[in-house]
């Protein structure tokens, strides 16, 4: 990639600070992953519970490097025509019609069938050519001349077949199109690839082997406090501490889905909207649906709210 990016990604500390400047608070591990990914030309596979900032990392890195972030959202049934490329069928049909009309001109003077066929072969065939190729995210990322960040989101949601499709791209930064040949990324402008997975199923070993593996767990109280501070700077320090310790307590409980960082941030924003100064049990009860997404979880926590709030306000 370009020299300026080299500078931006020169050391782990620099990456950490760069991300922090974009309000993405990382730890050394995350920064190390980005550092290694860039210098070793390896994709990063990010795993972790939902809402810890997996997708956000890719976006922030793109912003930091001033590159386009090309995103491919995976889902069941995603295939190469939606992920890599597709032929522009309409234009291809038009082309054949045009060809048909001009056929007379092309074959003029040809005698006999074999001569016509030879003449037809001499005529450059553009039916399968780049002009008729509609690039989808993966191909677009490869062809990007400025380099880019490619985010393959929730790769675990896609099928096994799609995973295999990715292998060529991930190990060699190239894509083979049978009709045209192999499209390679510019060796100096390889895309920086992030894959995210929510662990709904095991990713195949072949895919894992080609990637660096980064696991982002829930942050500890300290880091979470920093993250909230960066994302919702208008929140008073006191409330922030209470909020974080409340959430940390919740994560200890036996819930169907524990709140993630994104929920913490949402909650912080909610509390700001409500002009809250300090947590109290009633308020928490009313806003519980911001952080908990299942009715049974809400019911479990309802009973404990008083205790949890007291604990949180005391600790802060």
């Amino acid at each position: 990639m370009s020299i300026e990016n080299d500078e931006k990604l020169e050391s782990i500390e620099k990456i950490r600070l760069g991300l922090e400047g974009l309000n993405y608070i990382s730890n050394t591990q995350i920064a190390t992953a980005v550092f290694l990914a860039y210098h070793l030309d390896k994709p990063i596979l990010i795993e972790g519970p939902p809402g810890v900032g997996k997708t956000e990392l890719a976006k922030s890195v793109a912003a930091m490097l001033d590159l386009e972030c090309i995103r491919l959202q995976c889902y069941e049934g995603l295939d190469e025509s939606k992920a890599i490329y597709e032929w522009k069928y309409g234009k291809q049909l038009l082309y054949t019609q045009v060809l048909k009309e001009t056929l007379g001109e092309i074959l003029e003077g040809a005698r006999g069938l074999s001569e016509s066929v030879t003449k037809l072969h001499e005529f450059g065939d553009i039916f399968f050519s780049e002009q008729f190729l509609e690039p989808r995210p993966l191909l677009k990322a490869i062809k990007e001349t400025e380099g880019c960040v490619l985010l393959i989101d929730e790769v675990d949601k896609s099928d096994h077949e799609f995973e295999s499709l990715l292998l060529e791209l991930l190990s060699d930064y190239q894509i083979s199109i049978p009709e045209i040949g192999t499209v390679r990324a510019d060796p100096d402008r390889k895309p920086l690839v992030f894959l995210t997975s929510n662990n709904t199923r095991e990713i195949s070993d072949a895919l894992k082997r080609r990637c660096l593996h980064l696991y982002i767990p829930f942050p500890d109280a300290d880091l979470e406090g920093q993250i909230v501070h960066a994302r919702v700077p208008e929140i008073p320090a006191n409330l922030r501490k209470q909020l974080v310790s409340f959430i940390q307590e919740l994560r200890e409980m036996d819930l169907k889905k524990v709140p993630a960082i994104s929920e913490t941030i949402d909650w912080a924003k909610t509390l700001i909207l409500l002009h809250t100064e300090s947590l109290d049990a009633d308020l928490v009860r009313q806003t519980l649906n911001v952080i908990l997404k299942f009715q049974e979880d809400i019911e479990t926590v309802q009973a404990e709210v008083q205790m949890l709030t007291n604990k949180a306000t005391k600790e802060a």
Partner: protein
Amino acid sequence: METTLVDFVKVLRTAEIQVSPAETLDAMEALELVGYRNRTLLKNSLSMILSKTPEEKELFETSFEKFFTFENISNQPWAEDGDHQDDNTDFDDSSPGNPGNGQPGGKGSGQGGGQGSGEIEAEDEDDDQTTELTPSSPLGQLLMSGNRTELMVSLSEAGRRVEVNQIVVFTQKGLYTRKIMDAMGLKPLQDEITQLQGDGGRPERNLAKKLKQGRDRLRDQVRDYVEKQFFLHADESGKQLREELLKKVKLSNLEKRNFKDVQEIVFKMAKKLVAIHSKRRKTFKRGQLDVRKTLRKNMQYDGMFFDLQWKAIKVDRPKVMCICDVSGSVSNYSRFLLMFLYSLSEVIPKVRSFAFSSDLGEVTQLFENSKLEDAMAKTMRDYGNGSTDYGQMLMDFKRNCMDDVNNKTTVIILGDARNNYGDPKAGILHEMYEKARRVIWLNPEPRSNWIVGDAEMKKYAPNCHQTDVCNSLTHLERVVANLLRFAS
């Protein structure tokens, strides 16, 4: 440097982290980038490249901590106080081939040792003032130089030369300690010590004594080192060895204390099978055009392709009925077969199990609702008594469940077919054979015994799709894998 990494990868593999050669190469590349200097950085980087699940990351952490540590050796100071010397004096005095011994009282008694140490210190001082002899053997020189790092390097190199990472069982510790000492050049040192003592001069004797101290301390260190290597390399691989053994041993010979291990192995095997077979479960949404089928189907429309037929692979999950003999001799086999089947609930969701020795009873509920151990114990209590009667079992089965058997059902019967000379009722089995998709008979006895005595396999076997000897975990795994293969 490279060998260090390769060794580390080997350690990771024994700790059951899957590391491919390609990943090792990646790790090398990363190493060039980050170097060995910053430990946390190294750990983070390697962790990202070599361990790919949260569980593996945890294992990686412990392995890394164990592997990249040399504190044991470097922290122990070489020049220690009189304590050690004390022991060594005793040792020296009592060792044979030490003719001109000037201390009459020093024959091993504690008091004598104490006196000795006093003298030694005096001698040391003498020595410092007078001539300083240098040892001639390389190891001796190394010991005297007091250079810990170099000594450590030489120690690990010797370890590598004698391949201490091949250590498998703890009884080999002594062997490897000696081998490493030898590889480090114990022999010339030993010769030198003997020679020095033989010469008889005071400075020579002094040096000999020092060398001996050094040697003994070195031996301790080497022993420590071997110990550590043992934990690193052998602890896990010893476990693997045991697991391999347990897989092959006859299930009836297993002892109660092994049950826990075996259960773990069964779960591991089951997990592997689930991983292989759950991938196939995917149903194809579109599939390919099935030309033959389409042609055939559209004949009725005058060959117009009106109703397209798609090739799609539909996966039938096997419906398994498992009939287990739980009488004394066979009960262990039944136990593990059931354990296996119930660990596979992800890929075989429908298992119905029956137990019998004479009367047949369904135990599906029991196994689904309670823990394996409890369920097994209860089954044994309820059905385990009485002499085996296969005829009765088949009759009970016909009465209760024959209607549930259809062309998707796989029936597994596990038993030795020893019917105590009763009526085998092979006809019922034949009926089962006609109705079911597969009837599999698993017999723990070797094939040659199948027709000996009261065994009725000769009559039962023709009415089964498959008969197998099944008396170890490996056999069981094969049977279950086959079951899944036929299912899909």
